[in-house]
Each structure stands twice: as C-alpha cells, then as structure tokens.
C-alpha cells in the first residue's frame, strides 16, 4: 500500500462546518506543534478500496469454507448478528451517556447476563472482559479477592492447571500473581486425580479446567475433582472455550465450578474478526458476586435499569462496558437459538466431531481412542516416523485442498498433534469432503509433496527469517 502513495493525493473529505479557520499555530501552544506532519500513505479512495479488496482475496475465512481449527470453534456466524450490531440505536451510543439515555443497552446487557447465567448454571455475571484471556485474569483476580477476604492472614499462592491446558491459562495465573502447579493427564487424557490430590493443600487457591478438556474429552471425574479442590478451600475455574460442547446438556455450575468465563466469539456467534474482537464474560456463584468488576447493570423494581458497583468489586477490567457490540451479537444469537437451539448446537457439534473422528481413526494415530465431545486430537507421529510427514505438513496440504488447517502442535501433551473441531454448522457433506481430504493426505504421505501449499496466495512462508531479520514495519525494511 505504501508503494501506492503519491504526495498530495487524497481520499478524505470532511463535513463543512462554517467555523473560524484558526491555523495550527493559533490552536497549539508553542513547543507542542509538530514541525512535520505524520507521514501516512496518500491514496485515492479507489486505490484504497482496491488494495483491501485484493487483500481479502488473499484471506481464508469461515464464510469461504470449513475451518476446523480445534479449540477455536470457527463456526458460521449468522448474518442477522451483523444487522443487530449495526443498528444506530446501539452503535452510536456514547459509553458515558447517562443511564436514562441508555436503557435499551442496559436491558440488553442484563438480559444477556441472565441468559449466560442460565447456560453456565451460575448466579452473577460481568460482561466487561473483552476476550477469553481477559476473562481468565478477571476470574483469577476474583479468586484472589475471595481468598484475601476469607483467609487474609495466609492467602494461598498457587493455582493448579492440567498439562493439557491452553497457554493463556498459565499466563493468566502468573499475571494474577499466582504460581502455576501443573498436574499431569492420565492415560485416558483426563486429569490424573491421584496426582491432583497429591498437589492439593491449603496453599492452592484453585484449579483451572476446561471440560471437555483440550483433547475434546469430558472429565468424568469432575465431581470428585471439585470436591477435592473445595475441600482444601480452593475454587474451581472453568475455561469456557469449550462450552459449545455442552450447551443445554450440562453446566459448569452443576459440575461444581465457582467461576466461569465464556468466549462469546467461540460459542455465541461473535465472528472472530481475524483475531478479535471477542468477548469473555465471567460468571460466578452467588458468594463471589460481590467481587465482580464494576459497574454492572441492574434492573430496579420499577423496571428501569442502572449501573451499580458490587460491594467488594475487584475494579474495572475494561475502559468501558466491555465489547458491547459483540455482546449485542451474542444476545441476538441467544434470541435466535432459544434453549432448544443451544442444545441442538451441542448435539450437532459433538455428532460432527465423532463422525469425523471415526472416519479418520484408521488413517491417523488416535492418542486417546474413545468417543469425543466437540473436538478431538489425532497425531501425525506415525506418519512422521514412517514418512517424515509432520503435523504441520498435513496442515499445509489441507490448505491446498481448500480447507483451513486444524490446530497443530497443541495440546502440548500429544506429539504431532492435529486438533480438529468441525463445529455444528458444517453439513454432513462438508464433513465427508473434509474427511476424504484428510484420508487422502495420509494415504499420500509416502509420496508427500514437500512443497505444499501450492494453491495458496503465497507458498510456505519463511517464519525463521521473519524472526531472525525482524521487519516489524514498512520503515524497518532494508533499503534496496
């Protein structure tokens, strides 16, 4: 784009205002005025639009096809949510407008909070966290506030997480000021309960789990785990990234969790935006409600809405009220789905995953070979041993077949992992085509084309060079 720039060319125009045309020196005190304007590309609207339209033709997306990226729930997001979020009555509201001018927003947030409470089986919700990881940290700070209040003299210092956990979990634990205790998975791919019991003591603030876990397996011992953690005064944190699997089937609250975050961008139809924005509300049990970030919207007896701050709020975790328009999308999705629709989501997500798992069973290694929930992990370890074909090679080949690749190299506990989450919105036909492609890739491994992908906008990208000779901006390019 920078190459398209020509000095003096422009796209911009501004409303005519009829205001006095004070010049910069009259408006900006001496010493503050820049000598030079900020150099930015100067393009016509035509070139700007062409540039970005062309870039979008170099970008895969859910709207183009299947995107079985495990743990990410790349499902189709209905277009109605775009329309909901575009309504001027929502999109053009100032975040500091007084509550009486924003009753519609407050009602929406309250209703969404109630719905998320019902889905998770929890009692109170904050909608502020703008993503899953932000939700994790918020939840852990609530945990911290709880322990500080309950055990002010010797608050616990550790949080337990399984070795299969997503990387944001340990990072959030650290940011919350706790140290990480890793608990191994057993040979069924679940938390090793004996090992867990061995690390539990009163220095443990809690445990972070996702259930189904990152292998797509349901932690059947969850009730026992919950009991054990609660016994030492710890809390259970539910990483909601995998909530899609259990909507309307079971609830974190019923399993014994105390704190839950939801990734609305995974489960509730907020599109991923190329990496965001999302929304990561946190739901908690009654006794933790007082710690929620404030302000929270509440409904008064007279039916009006206002903001209030919980008595022992940990404080604000977002500049305003969270990713409000993402929340509006999620609310539209809840309305469109209803209770039954949400259960149907889980059923179809789990059905699709199991079907595909079954389809691939004889063609890939399956580390934990039993029915899965909404996703499953296969391994290319055998392909690698026999033919030198790694998980990443399988992934790149799949790009050539017109699909997005699964998640590779996660979870860390599986060698050459390929983590596959088809989601509920893919039809049986698409699923069959995806399975077919993966089977073919495995079959062709003996004569694997190391040049894949070939049908993509660029070929295999040199990641090592990017890191070694860092070019983080156009200005850092080596001069030709």
């Amino acid at each position, binding site marked *: 784009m920078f190459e398209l720039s020509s000095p003096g060319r422009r796209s911009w125009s501004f409303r005519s205002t009829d205001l006095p045309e004070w010049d910069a020196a009259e408006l900006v005190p001496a010493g503050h005025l820049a000598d030079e304007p900020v150099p930015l590309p100067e393009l016509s609207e035509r070139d700007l639009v062409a540039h970005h339209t062309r870039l979008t033709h170099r970008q895969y997306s859910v709207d183009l096809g299947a995107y079985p990226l495990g743990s990410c729930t790349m499902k189709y997001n209905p277009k109605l949510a775009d329309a909901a979020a575009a309504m001027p009555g929502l999109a053009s509201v100032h975040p500091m407008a007084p509550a009486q001018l924003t009753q519609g927003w407050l009602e929406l947030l309250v209703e969404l909070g109630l719905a998320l409470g019902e889905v998770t089986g929890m009692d109170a919700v904050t909608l502020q966290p703008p993503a899953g990881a932000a939700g994790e940290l918020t939840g852990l700070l609530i945990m911290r506030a709880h322990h500080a209040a309950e055990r002010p003299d010797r608050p616990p210092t550790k949080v337990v997480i399984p070795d299969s956990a997503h990387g944001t979990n340990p990072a959030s634990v650290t*940011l919350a000021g706790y140290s990480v205790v890793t608990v191994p998975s057993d040979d069924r791919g679940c938390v090793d309960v004996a090992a867990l019991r061995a690390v539990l003591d009163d220095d443990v603030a809690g445990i972070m789990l996702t259930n189904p876990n990152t292998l797509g397996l349901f932690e059947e011992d969850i009730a026992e785990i919950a009991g054990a953690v609660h016994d030492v005064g710890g809390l259970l944190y539910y990483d909601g990234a995998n909530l899609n699997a259990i909507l309307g089937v079971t609830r974190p609250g019923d399993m014994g969790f105390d704190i839950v975050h939801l990734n609305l961008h995974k489960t509730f139809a907020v599109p991923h935006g190329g990496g965001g924005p999302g929304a990561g509300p946190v739901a908690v049990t009654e006794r933790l409600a007082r710690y929620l970030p404030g302000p929270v919207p509440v409904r008064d007896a007279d039916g009006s809405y206002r903001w209030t701050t919980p008595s022992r709020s940990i404080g604000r975790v977002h500049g305003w009220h969270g990713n409000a328009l993402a929340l509006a999308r999620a609310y539209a999705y809840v309305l469109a789905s209803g209770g039954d629709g949400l259960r149907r989501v889980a059923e179809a997500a789990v059905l699709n995953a199991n079907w595909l798992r079954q389809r691939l069973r004889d063609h890939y290694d399956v580390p934990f070979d039993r029915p899965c929930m909404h996703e499953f992990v296969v391994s290319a370890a055998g392909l690698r041993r026999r033919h030198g074909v790694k998980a990443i090679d399988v992934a790149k080949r799949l790009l050539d077949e017109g699909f997005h690749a699964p998640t590779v190299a996660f979870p860390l506990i599986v060698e050459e992992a390929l983590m596959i989450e088809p989601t509920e919105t893919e039809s049986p036909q698409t699923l069959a085509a995806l399975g077919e492609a993966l089977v073919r890739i495995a079959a062709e491994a003996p004569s694997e084309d190391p040049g894949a992908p070939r049908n993509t906008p660029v070929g295999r990208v040199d990641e090592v060079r990017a890191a070694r000779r860092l070019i983080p901006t156009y200005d850092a390019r080596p001069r030709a």
Partner: protein
Amino acid sequence: MPSYVPHTDAEIEAMLAFLGLSSLDELFSVVPEALRLAAPLALPDALSEADVLAEVERLAGANVPCTGRGVAPGAGLVCFAGAGAYDHEVPEAVRAMASRSEYVTAYTPYQAEVAQGVLQALFEYQTMVARLAGLEVSNASLYDGASACVEAANLASAATGRRGIRVSRGVHPHWRQALRTFAAGSGSELSEVALVDGHTSWDDDGGPAPAALVVQYPNFLGCLEDLSAARRAADAAGALLVVAFDPVAAGLLVPPGARGADVVVGEGQPFGTALSFGGPYLGLFACRLEHVRRLPGRLVGETVDVEGRTAYVSTLRTREQDIRRERASSNVCTNQTLIAVACAVQLAWLGTSGLRELALRCARATRYTRESLLALEGVEPLVGAPTLREFAVRLPADPTVVVDRMADEGFLAGVALGGDGAGAGAEYGEGLLVAATERRTRAEIDAYVAAMDKVLR
C-alpha cells in the same frame, strides 16, 4: 426457528448409525448422569430472524443515540461528549472494507499462507501506529486504551525489575482504575501524581524508584502536558516514560516518541470505529525496538515465501502464551484485529494531510465551543492549562443535572465530573468535560450554547 445447524433428521440418523449409536443423547453418555440437565435451559423459545431483529430494534429504540447531525429533529443527540470516546465520522469506504467477510470471519492468522490479507493489513497498521507514536514498533492491537496502559505498566516492570508505577491524575480515571485492578495480580505499586491547574507535577514523592511514569497527552481534561518535563522526571528516577496519547491530536502535536516516550499507548476508537457504547475499541501500543521481546500481543513481520515473494507472518511468537505459557510477556490471545484493520483503512483514507486536517478541525471546533461556552454567565474554565482535544468548565449548576436537561434539548452536553450524580472523575471537582469533533458545525455549536444558556438560567 432459523437453526444454524444444517443436519436433517435423516442425516442425523445416518451419522449416528455410522457411530453405532441410536440417539443423540448417547453422544453424551460420558457425562455423568447426575450432571446432566434434566430440563431444557430456561430460555425463551427460539425466534425467527425477523423477530430477533424486531426485538433488538426495540432495545435500540430505548436508547438515545448520538446520531444527531442537526439534520432531522428527534433523530438523536448531537454529541459534545468525549472523555476517551469520540464522535468522529466513519467514512463509507472504511465501513465497507472493515465489513468484508474475509476480514470479519477469519481467525488469528495461524496459517500464514492463507492469511496474507489480515497479516498485510496488520503490518500496515503497525507501520502507521509506529509513525503516529514516533516509535519503532507497534503490536497488532490490544483490547482498548485502558488495557494497553496496563500492558505498558507490565512491560516497564519487566524491563526495569521494579514495581512502582507513578501515574499522573491526568490519565483517564477508568484507565487508572484498570491499572489498580490488575496491579492486585501483577504486584505493581501504583502511586498517583497530582495535577496542578491541569498539569502533572512530577515532584518526587519519596516512594521507591518507579518502573514507569505514566502521563496522558493531551490529558483527561484536554490539557497539553509537558512531556519534556515528564521525560526529565523519568530520567531522574531511572524509569520508563509511558505516554497515553490521543491519536487524533497526534495530527498536530510532536509525537511522544520524539519527546522521549519509551512506550506509547492510546485508544484507537477515533479511527474507523463508532461510539459503540464503549466497545469493541482498540488498544494502540508502540514502543522502542529494544523492548520488542517484551511487547504484549501479536506482532506481524515481513518475510518471504519459498519462492522469494514478499509475505507476512506472525513473528517472535515465542513471547506468546501458547508457546511460553506462564513465562509469556502477556496473556493476550484474541485481540482486536478487525478494529485494527478498520483503523488502518481509516489512517490511509486520511493520509498525511487528512490526519492533520482532522486534528485541526477538531481543535477549531473545540476552541469555538469553548469560547462560546465561556461567554455564558457563570461558566468558567475548570483549569488554566491550555487545552486541545477537549476542555472542562465549571458550571453554575450540578453538571449531572445539566447533562440530563441538555438531553431534552437534543444534546449530549459532555461528561459530568462530580456533582450529585457522582459523575466520572469526581476528583477533579464539579465540572463538565466537553469535546467537539470535526463533525460539529457552527450551527450545532451555536444551538448547543443557546440550549446551555437556557438550561443554566
């Protein structure tokens, strides 16, 4: 009603048969009986698309948005509120590009070969944000200005091995609240530095040597802080200087990097994002190259593909949590890519001259509003320091009440500071914080001041 699950009953049966199952319930047999929901979720029945939109329309109709342009009466409020969220025009080209479904429905660019669109757009974003800040690197977005500020404090702590963070009271109160919230986990020790007549007074507070000084430019009250003084104070303390800047005012001001900022953070909403009731917004974050390995969030770098063609990729990923786990420099995973793309489109739409023009027009409207308001009896400046992006006035009435009454006149009058409604930033005293963007016309401002005159009588 509209089910986004495509499966027909016949297909479900065939798939179950393939799995040797006889019902969908059996899929969940691993879930212990006791944990399974006995009844369906207590949520309303599914609605059709039309019914959903009608319901959301009802809710939207219960808000009074800032859609007023002095055009159609009753069409919404004319906006004079700022305080970190501004009523700028979003050009149609920007709207169109940012709603391309390839940008909207992709995920984090893990597979670079099929993500060149997002990656290149982010590379361009990084370049332009770095230029705005006057620094060498920018990441590919954080959640919002507040979280960018928190991350800057964390970076400074890691870089210096110190815990103290000295934050100017001129920094947005919400951002300071967020700093406080996350300090509970990170162990940062915050101390606030007072404003004297609108400017931060950096006199040594006698506390331990800080990791960073944090100042906002222009600050919450719209005043132009003395960044050189902040830099000197930082040097004296051996601390990093974090500047929270306004990227629109940056069209006129010396870039913070040129005044010695080590880290520049900001709220990117003014470029391409509607008011949106506060989100999704965009955390801008730029720093000196020496801190790149502590940079929170995603970073896109330029490289080549196997055939030597220019290509883009997420780089220095070993900083990130999915690889470095508890030793990561930040836990940010999903960020605000789409908003960053919109920002990048808008910055290119503005270009060199447009950014300056935008800043100039905002400054003119703000000045004109300020002068007109101050001409009203009993309206006085809250602080004496020169302002640019917005300004605060003391009113002869409770500002929360004034804001309410002005809404009846068709204006969002500003953000109330203090007063009976305990407006934002009560610490500044009772007042009204007013911003006028490039969208405000003389006619609108005159009408606003006339309405204020009426309301204040």
